[in-house]
């Protein structure tokens, strides 16, 4: 009897015993995997040493101080390097506003301010002049997420509007829908592309590259859910503005010292 139940030299009792041990092991790993950090063991040391990132505990926002921007273009160049932005497309850019006489407004943004700005060859002196850094506003009620036909555009719980490049079909509807001109169809990959707030950096505790590289502190970035965050403090106590507030997109990109000429 015993002989006939042998399968390949292993008795049924042995086979059952082995699988029971295996099952117990699997249950142990599944149950205590989090404590043992199996993921960290499998995928690398970072996950072991750092606690997992919880997006629900943050709400990021940009704050731009127009009076501090000097139009050097460091941010545009840094963004291009960090995110492989194709030439003549911009995840962030700088606009120069010059107001002459009564109400003549001249605006320019040569190559998005990538190479800085040349002085006006005419030598005419502007009544007022200022630089305005622009970026995706990471709006709370953003039309781009609303009308993406396949749900490739989405807003993360920590307030960042992102594109799933593996899901995007490249229809360009979001490019049309963005009131701020923050999106473009990437010639490499033929999908929609935009500012990601350097999500690969901020989820590791770093600041977005453009903020990091800004020499004057015109670009600031903060976490509204962090107690005592300086940006949250400014937003709570000082006068700030958003772009195109009449569209009710609720931008998460605020401006200090905004001028009425800014579009």
């Amino acid at each position, binding site marked *: 009897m015993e002989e006939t139940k042998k399968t390949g030299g292993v008795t049924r009792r042995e086979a059952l015993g082995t699988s029971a041990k295996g099952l117990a092991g699997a249950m142990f790993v599944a149950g205590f995997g989090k404590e043992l950090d199996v993921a960290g063991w499998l995928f690398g040391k970072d996950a072991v040493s750092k606690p997992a990132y919880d997006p629900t505990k943050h709400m990021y926002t940009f704050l731009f101080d127009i009076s501090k921007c000097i139009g050097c273009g460091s941010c545009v160049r840094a963004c291009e390097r960090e995110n492989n932005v194709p030439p*003549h497309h*911009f995840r962030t850019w700088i606009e120069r506003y010059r107001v002459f006489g009564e109400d003549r407004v001249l605006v320019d943004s040569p190559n998005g301010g990538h190479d800085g700005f040349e002085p006006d060859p005419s030598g005419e002196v502007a009544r007022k002049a200022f630089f305005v850094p622009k970026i995706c506003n990471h709006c709370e009620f953003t*039309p781009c997420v609303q*009308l993406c036909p396949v749900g490739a555009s989405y807003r993360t719980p920590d307030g960042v509007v992102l594109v799933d490049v593996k899901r995007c079909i490249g229809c360009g509807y979001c*490019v049309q829908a963005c009131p701020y*001109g923050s999106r473009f*169809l990437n010639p490499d990959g033929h999908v929609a592309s935009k500012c990601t707030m350097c999500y690969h950096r901020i989820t590791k505790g770093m600041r977005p590259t453009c903020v990091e590289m800004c020499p004057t502190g015109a670009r600031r970035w903060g976490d509204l859910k962090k107690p005592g965050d300086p940006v949250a403090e400014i937003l709570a106590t000082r006068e700030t503005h958003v772009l195109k507030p009449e*569209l009710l997109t609720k931008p998460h990109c605020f401006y200090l010292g905004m001028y009425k000429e800014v579009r």
Partner: protein
Amino acid sequence: MEGSGVGFSYPNDLHIAWGVMIVLYPYVTGLVAGSFVVGSLYHVFGRQELKPISRLSLVASLGFLIFAPVPLLFHLGQPMRCFNIMITPNFSSAMAAFGVIYAVYFIIVLLEIWLVFRKDIVMNARQNRGILRWFYASLALWTYDVSDESRKLDHKIVVVLAAIGIPAACVLHGYVGFMFGSVKANPYWSTPLMPVIFLTSAITSGIAMMVVLYQILMKFGGRTIEPDCVQSLCKWLWLFAILAVTLELLEIVCIAYERSEEWVVIGTLLSGKLAFSFIGIQLVFGSLIPIILLGIVVLMRPYLTNPLRNTIGFVAALFLLVQVLAMRWNVVIGGQLFSKSLMGFREAYQPGLFEKEGLGVALLIFLASFVFMAIFNRFLPMYEKKENGNGTGDGAKTGFTERREAAKSEEARG
């Protein structure tokens, strides 16, 4: 792709995201909806004078419908992922409705055509041998019952389908208009009038296409053009052309009269970069002239000979086909020529001839619908063969007399 423009544009706005293919897509869907609505005037509302185009309109609708999504595929950056719209739709997106609306409408048109042509299919199945017989039998779903009772039932279903089809056609094209009308970032598109404008111009283009196609088919088939049919089409065409043009102007007049911020850029656009295609083609050549011509056809009927009225109607319809295309161009391309900064313009958009989204491909896609219609006509003729035709070709010997008699008895039944 580096571009420059006048005034100040947001740097990303210097690129055109939607080109010729997105001009062609609403144009072709408009023809789908329009030709279906004309057919329904006969099938549902019993306009007997439109009987000569009752079949043509359905087949044309199907032909355009099959090729309507093709420009979209050429446009998409990732066409292989196109089914994501149907598999994982984002229900807050107007564009995601495409899958459902297109599928429903496709089924309606296909069913209606099958029921209308069922008798022909069965006869062909009976009279042919070999592979052709198998082909027609499979088209007939191996159901050969064409008794009077079954035909009556067919007819009833056709009426119901056409009745459902009218709102479906309106939804199919209305939603295309809605896709533009609901973009709040673009003041030139963002108006609730947009779906209505698209719909009326779609019906205009559909009727115009029927006037043109019907006359060409009759002329080259050596058949007589029914003046009553053309007259009736012209009357409807006149009505819808006036409606469409009125609404198109109403939108512009409203923006102009409100003198809000966007008029600075839209007014400059319409009288500048779009002057030729908007004022020249859309308003004067495409609207004013054909509306006058159709007015002559409709109002001066007793004073004009039939061939003259047919010819005037033909010319007016051709102009209107161009008008609707120009309108699509002015909306789609015109809406992208200014930056969302409302302070500057792109350089004029000039599509290439041989690129992926170029004019050549657009023309081929457009012509493909007609090729489909010709192939359809080869297997299931939309019109009876000419009675005294010399060498009537191959189709004639297969059940020509039977079909003619059947048609006669059908006519006798009303």
